[in-house]
């Protein structure tokens, strides 16, 4: 199976030329060892009640379109990965992050931080309630805009297969103009980052639902 991940160097994304490793990666002689093939253990007691509901972390409700984002974390053979930590962060409905370095002149929302986390259940399922993030401009090139996305961080079972990625929304007209989404050459592979509107996840008269499964990379055998 070919490597699904983008290359380090993708010049249209202008932060890559000085940060991409220039030497070939080294394949460890006997593969990763027991530490690298395992992952930290997280517990429910470490999480807060509203960590997975980004609309209830403040006094009032955030502005924007309320949505449910859910899916399963699966290993490379399709088995669910239970009890693994999933973290998300995102811009608000106006396309503004609460982060101090975000200079986009769009309003902050006092009722929205935009950070959440949860542990997957026995079926590997995660679920967040949030609001749909807005597109936002950035300074990569003239008139550069990011398609709406939610950042995801997933642990899984092996530290070296730990995944940080971004989930997008179906049919975004900005896909064609985004060098981060475009860092993946294969159209079929790109589609794996796009969530699916799901009417069964949607709660009538309350929130649209999106489904997005996350599949972690294969863990090399210890003796390979």
């Amino acid at each position, binding site marked *: 199976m070919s490597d699904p991940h983008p290359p380090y160097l993708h010049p249209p994304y202008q932060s890559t030329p000085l940060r991409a490793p220039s030497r070939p990666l080294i*394949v460890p002689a006997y593969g990763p060892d027991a530490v690298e093939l395992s992952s930290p253990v997280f517990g429910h007691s470490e999480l807060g009640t509203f960590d997975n509901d980004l609309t209830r972390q403040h006094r009032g409700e955030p502005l924007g379109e309320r949505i449910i984002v859910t899916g399963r974390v699966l290993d490379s053979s399709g088995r669910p990965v239970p009890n693994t930590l999933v973290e998300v962060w995102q811009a608000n409905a106006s396309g503004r992050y609460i982060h101090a370095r975000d200079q986009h002149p769009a309003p902050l929302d006092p009722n929205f931080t935009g950070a959440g986390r949860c542990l997957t259940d026995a079926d590997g399922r995660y679920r967040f309630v949030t609001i749909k993030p807005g597109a936002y401009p950035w300074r990569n090139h003239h008139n550069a805009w990011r398609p709406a996305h939610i950042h995801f961080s997933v642990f899984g079972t092996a530290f070296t297969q730990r995944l940080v990625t971004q989930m997008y929304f179906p049919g975004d007209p900005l896909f064609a103009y985004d060098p981060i989404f475009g860092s993946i050459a294969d159209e079929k592979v790109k589609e794996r980052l796009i969530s699916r509107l799901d009417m069964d996840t949607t709660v009538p008269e309350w929130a649209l639902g999106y489904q997005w499964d996350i*599949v972690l990379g294969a863990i090399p055998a210890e003796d390979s």
Partner: protein
Amino acid sequence: MNETTPSQTVGPFFGYALPYGDGPRVVPEWHPDAIRIHGGVFDGAGEPLPDALLEIWQAGPDGEVPRAVGALTRDGHDFAGFGRCGTDAAGHYWFSTLKPGGPTPYLALLVFARGLLKPVITRIYFPDEPGNAGDPVLSGVPPERRDTLVAVREHDRSYRFDVRLQGEQETVFFAV
């Protein structure tokens, strides 16, 4: 057949979401066996990265893979083995942890940053370890580049480990 979800960059705006108070403190600094690992992350022009995120994962002093909960809320007792630190404005990171046991102690290290479309994966080895010479992973690295994987002892309980993403002294990164 399951199709792996591809990586995307952590971007510049994770700072309010991923780092957490005790992230760098795998054990408290006052722990009698605590060691400090710290250093900088640099780009190909030698400039420090103020927006990198580093994660370590390691064996405990007994050489075993930690199975204790408590990486997010440190209880000061169980060793969870995981640490996370964002670099500061000067590109500097630090961890307070315990030296792993085993014949060749090392910390697994992931670095995420804006401009890295996927993390770099490396190992932090310790200097003056007799096991280093026979370690299969270190031995598989060209001799002139092995130093990039070995922390520099500053004093007994402090080690420096710089990450150079690109260039002459580029840190060795692994494909696993």
